[in-house]
């Protein structure tokens, strides 16, 4: 099966800046693919390379087996939901949504009908006669989605589409997007700097840093088995251990990651490793307590379920974890 989008050793350099540096990836058809990374990591440039707004300085891009270099955006069967939505301010909502069909020469009655259907799909029926300026951020986001989907793209590119929404709305949209993707079966490529968003929505995640992919895998793989210190740090917040500390905790003498929620307060059960330390601080986060424990100079973050008794600051505590959760990483 041909990949929906494939990159072979793709680079995009702006002068001395290597925005994207030697990236290989293959996105399967129907996949929900997230590109995760901090700002300036190259994830958005990758998306722009797929959309055709940028051309690679080296390497080869294919979209459904067809060479994409030199193909302008308006000839690609991909559509984009822009970060700040990029709705046309001089057009009504329905004109915005019908725009893609209008420029392709679809008749007026037909395209207005399709636009209304698309608006109904994103739960904005009857909003057609308004203008973008009259809608809230969340509503504009839905219009941008409808405007892209009405063209029935084979790949939908989403550039931090939820970044400007408040938390509640964002969680709601995450579910809706996931549902839409499942029901439409379109390949979604989603750029985000929010690791929670990437973990909860994506089938696979590519973690970007400095223009390169640090790790590519399912959310579970990326979370549980971070390949590098960067991934361990960026995806969730892990205890990144130096080789010395890792060895002291019973692992190999290598950089290692130990997730806070893999550590438990209390004595070791069978097969577990236990160490004692001193409780430095504790914070109540609602569902959990966030504890910091000093173990012979190494500070470990521990996530304890709310409701469990929390020792007083400065007390000696015993913490234990399964050796399998102490995950060694590559040095990079």
């Amino acid at each position, binding site marked *: 099966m041909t990949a929906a989008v494939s990159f072979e050793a793709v680079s995009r350099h702006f002068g001395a800046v290597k925005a994207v540096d030697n990236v290989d990836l293959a996105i399967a058809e129907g996949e929900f693919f997230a590109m995760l990374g901090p700002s300036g990591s190259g994830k958005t440039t990758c998306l722009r390379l797929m959309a055709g707004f940028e051309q690679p300085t080296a390497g080869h891009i294919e979209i459904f087996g067809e060479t994409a270099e030199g193909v302008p955006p*308006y000839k690609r069967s991909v559509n984009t939901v822009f970060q*700040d939505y990029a709705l*046309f301010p*001089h057009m009504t909502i329905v004109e915005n949504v019908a725009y893609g069909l209008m420029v392709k020469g679809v008749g007026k009655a037909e395209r207005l009908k399709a636009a209304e259907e698309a608006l109904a799909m994103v739960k904005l029926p009857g909003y057609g006669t308004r203008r973008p300026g009259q809608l809230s951020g969340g509503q504009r986001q839905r219009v941008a989605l409808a405007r892209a989907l009405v*063209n029935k793209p084979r790949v939908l590119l989403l550039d931090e589409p939820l970044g400007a929404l408040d938390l509640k709305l964002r969680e709601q949209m995450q579910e809706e997007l996931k549902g839409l993707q499942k029901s439409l079966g379109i390949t979604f490529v989603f750029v985000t700097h929010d690791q929670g968003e990437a973990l909860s929505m994506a089938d696979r995640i590519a973690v970007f840093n400095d223009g390169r992919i640090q790790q590519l895998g399912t959310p579970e793989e990326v979370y549980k088995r971070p390949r590098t210190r960067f991934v361990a740090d960026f995806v969730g917040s892990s205890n990144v251990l130096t080789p010395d500390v890792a060895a002291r905790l019973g692992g190999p003498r290598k950089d290692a990651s130990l997730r806070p929620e893999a550590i438990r307060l209390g004595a070791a059960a069978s097969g577990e490793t236990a160490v004692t330390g001193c409780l430095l601080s504790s914070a109540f986060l609602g569902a959990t307590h966030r504890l910091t424990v000093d173990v012979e100079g190494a500070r470990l973050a521990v996530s304890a379920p709310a409701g469990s008794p929390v020792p007083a600051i400065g007390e000696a505590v015993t913490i234990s974890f399964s050796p399998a959760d102490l995950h060694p990483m590559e040095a990079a």
Partner: protein
Amino acid sequence: MTSATLPASITRRDRGLTGRLSDTLWRHPQLFVAILLIPPLLWLGIIYVGSLFALLAQSFFSIDDFSGLVTYELTLSTYGQLWSDANFDIIVRTVLMAALVTLASAVVAFPIAYYAARYARGRMKAFFYLAVMLPLWSSYLVKVYAWKLILAKEGILTWFVGKLHLTWLLDAWLALPIIGGSSLSVSYTGTFLVFLYVWMPFMILPIQASLERVPGNLIEASADLGATPGQTFRSVIFPLALPGIVAGSIFTFSLTLGDYIIPQIVGSSRLFIGQAVYAQQGTAGNIPLAAAFSVVPIVIMALYLTAAKRMGAFNAL
């Protein structure tokens, strides 16, 4: 935190007259706005609007053909004179010239403004502003006389056209009725070229400002949705730049309607509205007719703006 570091009260009463004045103005913002606006409003109200009204009033008087004195009785007979063949020709000539200059300015200015707004960065942008503004820093008379020399029969343009072996084309153009003449500097074509040059910055700058406000991602979004560059221009860029074009055209159109120097220096001896006003209020001593002529551009501009608004030129504002 010790109480010694905190003031005893949140209010300070240690300021003098100016302090109390600021407090009063802070409490009564309308008063502040009034103080700001009274001087310019007095200026605008008495000197500007006042003189405009005096002018309008003059146009409803008439001149006694026998004595040459103004008869201070309200009448529309002066406006009637505007419809006489000679006067109406002046109006048509001026409006036509203004329309052509405006259209040509928009066509020439748009690519320049587009380049400046979308592509020019850093030094190129500074150069653009300098190139557009520099002509505005020198006297308009100097520029017009310079153009008279450029366009003269022995001028550089004729010489250059000769070098290009295109003299036949220039001759053919000058042989055309109405727009031709014995040389460019005494033809309507010459007048047109000078108007086009002199008002060009007034068209470029508003268009550039309006294009500058079109976010780049709208153009990308349009391409992303399948629009070719031509479609993007027609459906996105042009409609969003339209307020700028209209703003620019208000300048070029009204400046051409009112100008009386350029057609006097470069062009045929036939009059434009500005020259007619000048002649009527000066040598002819017919103030009412001069006033009536002055009202014509005001009415035309009012009609033009109404039409532009109806067509939705300001919707994107």
